[in-house]
């Protein structure tokens, strides 16, 4: 039973590693150049602090996932891993939420503040960012499952 539990956790962590790494990479490579009325307009992820935060958060989480996969099965460090899983889930929710908020403004604009939507001028950039957000969301859902699983494993050890 313990083997099945550990295998399940490992599979979840591998999937989460894939999701967060792809979110970070896709967001990091989003870049588009457009000219509107002879003004060159370049959109990069680093122009918007929210997207920078999203990329950094997902990169950190993917490195963490990669390291945890190699942790041996019976050390006491698994309790620390459970605590870190909670912190990492927090980080992921706030990064996805922040990026989504700003992306929504970019897509629909905000009439009251006089902010025009930019997705009309750089549609490929917008699609790129949406893809990254989707991957980030998948990583978040996986991490919620990982958090529940690791807290359960630490509190109710299946061996003994």
């Amino acid at each position, binding site marked *: 039973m313990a083997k099945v539990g550990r295998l399940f956790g490992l599979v979840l962590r591998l999937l989460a590693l894939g999701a967060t790494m792809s979110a970070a990479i896709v967001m990091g490579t989003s870049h588009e150049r457009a000219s509107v009325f002879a003004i060159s307009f370049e959109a990069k992820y680093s122009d918007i602090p929210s997207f920078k935060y999203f990329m950094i958060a997902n990169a950190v989480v993917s490195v963490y996932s990669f390291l945890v996969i190699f942790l041996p099965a019976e050390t006491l460090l698994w309790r620390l891993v459970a605590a870190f899983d909670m912190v990492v*889930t927090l980080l992921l929710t706030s990064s996805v*939420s922040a990026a989504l*908020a700003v992306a929504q403004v970019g897509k629909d604009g905000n009439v009251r503040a006089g902010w025009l939507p930019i997705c009309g001028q750089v549609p490929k950039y917008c699609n790129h960012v949406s893809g990254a957000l989707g991957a980030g969301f998948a990583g978040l859902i996986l991490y919620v499952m990982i958090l529940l699983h690791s807290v359960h494993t630490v509190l109710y050890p299946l061996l003994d």
Partner: protein
Amino acid sequence: MALDNGAKPEAVHDSTLVSKAPSNQVLLVLRLVAFFATAAATIVMALNKETKTIVVATIGSTPINATLTAKFQDTPAFVFFVIANGMASLHNLLMVVVEIWGHKFDYKGLRLAMIAVLDMMTVALASGGDGAATFMAELGKKGNSHARWNKICDKFGTFCDHGAGAIISSFVGLLLLVLITALSIGRLVKPRPATLSPV
């Protein structure tokens, strides 16, 4: 702590013994403070509204005024912030009530586990609301020259100040919620006689 946890399985149906244990009292106090923090954040942001009348043109000697209003509903991020903090404060209130009066309710011994899981979900929700509102407020304060979005905090200073206060209060509530989650997960630890005593 070990004695505390050891006393719990027999004493789970005796409300006075469990509620007098010091870790439970600390948890209760933390939940109360977190409730006030998140409730304050919700209320301050929900009542955040500023109206400004500016002169747009002058015809002859009569100025034409335009009234601009900044409300929290204009931005979906702030709406989500209000909803997330509202739900977090409701959760805290519910947990406080359950701590004080609800020791009879137990479902197959899963009560503590359900409380811990609900705490984790609330932390995730509240952190999502905070993240969105923080970056939206930063956008309003500094604008974004690349996207040609102007800052709005120089015109609506009070709106921005109230929003900043609400966000800070919500961060305090979030920090407390993380502490509360750690404590309530710690309560789930079963004492294991053959090994070291748990945290």
